[in-house]
């Protein structure tokens, strides 16, 4: 069953979603939450990664032994130690949104596609392990790159260009200059 929307309807509603977010709260961004999830896990092993302190005026401050997590007065640490925050609940709600969309009218994911997309199977074969290694490697590059860039498709490309941020255009240029040839070389059909 294919009941996804046509391009114009899709464009209007996707644009409305980005507009709703900035109207009510702030521009949509996703990739930061991978850092928050990591910090949430690893600070259990090494508590120095996420510390809550009280300053001389009795206010809470946040810090980390890691230079990246310590940036911006430890705002990543603050989010980690207050995990039920807007950004983190937002990404959890995205799972639920995808689930509901597939149940309410679809399109449903075909059974033989649940682990391996058609385009991968046609070009690179039906090995489960190969696709999982590919997906893992893909995720690695995507999030490493997004953190270096300071945002991803949502934050830089969509929200960024919506605000006419120079960074949005620069990010998109970097992404497509590489992603287009990679996709053309890897997927011949």
């Amino acid at each position, binding site marked *: 069953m294919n009941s996804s929307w046509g391009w114009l309807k899709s464009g209007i509603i*996707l644009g409305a979603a980005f507009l709703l977010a900035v109207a009510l709260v702030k521009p949509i961004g996703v990739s930061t939450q991978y850092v928050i999830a990591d910090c949430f896990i690893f600070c259990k092993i090494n508590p120095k990664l996420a510390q809550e302190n009280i300053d001389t005026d009795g206010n809470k401050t946040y810090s980390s032994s890691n230079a990246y997590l310590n940036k911006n007065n430890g705002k990543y640490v603050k989010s980690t130690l207050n995990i039920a925050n807007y950004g983190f609940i937002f990404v959890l709600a995205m799972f639920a949104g995808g*689930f509901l969309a597939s149940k309410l009218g679809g399109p449903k994911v075909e059974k033989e596609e649940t682990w391996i997309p058609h385009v991968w199977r046609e070009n690179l074969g039906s090995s489960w392990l190969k696709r999982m290694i590919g997906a893992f490697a893909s*995720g690695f590059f995507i999030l490493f790159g997004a953190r*270096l860039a300071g945002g991803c498709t949502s934050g830089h490309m969509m929200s960024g260009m919506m605000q006419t941020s120079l960074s949005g255009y620069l*990010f998109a240029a970097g992404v497509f200059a590489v992603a287009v040839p990679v996709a053309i070389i890897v997927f011949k059909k």
Partner: protein
Amino acid sequence: MKEILFAILIGGSFGFVLHKVGATNPNKIVGFLRLTDLHLAKVILFAIGFSSLLLFILMAVGLIPAAHISVKSSYIGVIIGGAIFGIGFGLGGYCPGTTLAALGSGRKDSIFMILGGLVGAWVFVLVYGWLTTSMPWLYDKIAGGKVSLAQTANENFPALIDGISGVLVAAVVAILFMGGAALLPSKLRG
């Protein structure tokens, strides 16, 4: 509490919409990047133009608070990070956000994409200190950093095109995006 309700409402809608527009489908993403199925390119171009036009109008009349705007910094690492992102994007067909909604919709390879993402983000966290000392040029600002083309209502972010109404500049850019979406054929190759 209001914040959490907004997170559920907006995050839920965003995940729902990503699935409905086809962005959770790696076949569609790969088709877009191979230029053989430009459905998503048209969707994205239109969405950016449409949301941008309304944002600048609503901001100018005061319906969207200027404080909600958040222009990210421009620096060399934005382009290089984008290029590294592009390797994974072209190979896997997911983004950090679409893979979450895709998992919800039943695409289980997203589990490995997300795990890879968690590892990639953590490796970046660990090497960040070294990157800033050994390759400080990665963080060299471009055109002043937090700048936009059109003047927003937020004074913290200077505009590159100054002296012309921000709404007008944004409208021209928005029309180029929406017009591009309409004129783009359904495929360029294959």
